[in-house]
């Protein structure tokens, strides 16, 4: 069955502070693949994934994504996802326009200049022209180690 366009989305509510010194990761916006382009750059304010990090100023944390190569569908069908060397960005100011690019396929060491920072994630979905109908799922894992 032909699938000319696809949307893959994770959307999340904005984070609220926890009293006292806390740390953690919360999401603002999920990664979406709208339209026929199926390529989402990390600077795409509408469709890139955004993850907010909270830590102490000056702190460092390593960010490691475990990214799915495919999403699994019915009867073993798959839909390819591709994440490239320039598909993630770290912003100490939480600005999508001020990112330091990094490869989401390898660990990244982030340094906080303030209490909060953001990570942006882009990627590419590649549904085939004869993608089998049904439900497709995949899992993104983000591991944040605070030192």
């Amino acid at each position, binding site marked *: 069955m032909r699938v000319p*366009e696809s*949307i893959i989305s994770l959307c*999340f509510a904005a984070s609220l502070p926890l009293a006292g010194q806390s740390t953690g990761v919360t999401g603002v916006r999920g*990664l979406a693949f709208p339209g026929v382009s199926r390529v989402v750059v990390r600077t795409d304010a509408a469709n890139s994934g955004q993850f907010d990090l909270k830590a102490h100023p*000056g702190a460092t944390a390593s960010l490691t994504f475990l990214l799915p190569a495919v999403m699994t569908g019915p009867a073993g069908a798959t839909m390819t996802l591709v994440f490239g060397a320039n598909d993630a960005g770290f912003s100490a100011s939480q600005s999508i326009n001020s990112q330091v690019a990094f490869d989401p396929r390898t660990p990244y060491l982030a340094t906080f200049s303030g209490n909060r920072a953001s990570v942006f994630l882009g990627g590419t979905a590649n549904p085939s022209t004869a993608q089998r109908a049904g439900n497709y799922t995949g899992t993104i894992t*983000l591991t944040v180690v605070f030192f």
Partner: protein
Amino acid sequence: MPRSPLVALLVALGAARTLAAQGVLIAPHAIYIDHARRSGTVTLYNPNAAPAEVSISTAFGYPITDSLGHFALRTVERPDSTLPSAAAWVQAFPRRLTIAPLERQTVRLLVTPPAGLPDGEYWARLIISARGGTLPVGVAGDTAAVRVQLNLVVNTNIGLSYRKGPLATGVTLSKLRARVVRDSVEVWSRLERRETAAYVGTVRAAVVDATGKVRSTLNAPIAVYFVMEPRYALSVTGLAPGAYWVRYELVTEREDLDPAVVLQAAAVRDSVQVRLP
């Protein structure tokens, strides 16, 4: 379907649905448990609009630096008796929980050390794994017969220290060196922990000009468990060419931690000259 309507559809779906959780906030971000109490707590907060499924586990590991001076976590799956691991003794209650939207939950950490445990500091890592972010969205297209869903798991890994008996800490600073890299001065040093507990403190560095005026500063929390050689970068953008001093010190001060858990030690200092081109 053109791109704009698809984006609009996505936004509309996002606004209309109760969206799944992703990640939780954790306090404190470093846990200290005393042998006298053998228990501690960690508070989790779910800032999302949907329940968060959380599981808690422990592992053994400690920060190190790699050859580039970057911090990394060295993990040991089966630590032997030479490593001060508390990972096997720490249990979280509950270990699995669901946190309602905008709710907090306290997790109790109980430690059951072996009998006859010598005085000292023992370490573990607490891993809080939050699962959520499942948002099925129909694929827009001629038939909309394909549905896709990305699930998200966020693992947050923080330090835990178990302390028994009187403890002391300290650090030696050596091999301080600096070099200019583009618009920064990179500073390296070798830090070696002394005494019986990890050195937890702050690195302070400053670039000082010939008149003694501070031109650039850096403050960074640090924990030295064994030995590390961290690299820091201080901006020297706009500074005139010439000789400068890099002042470098470690102090046992941490704004982000309860002072009661920060073991005190004498500050260590050194300085090195660097010339800006």
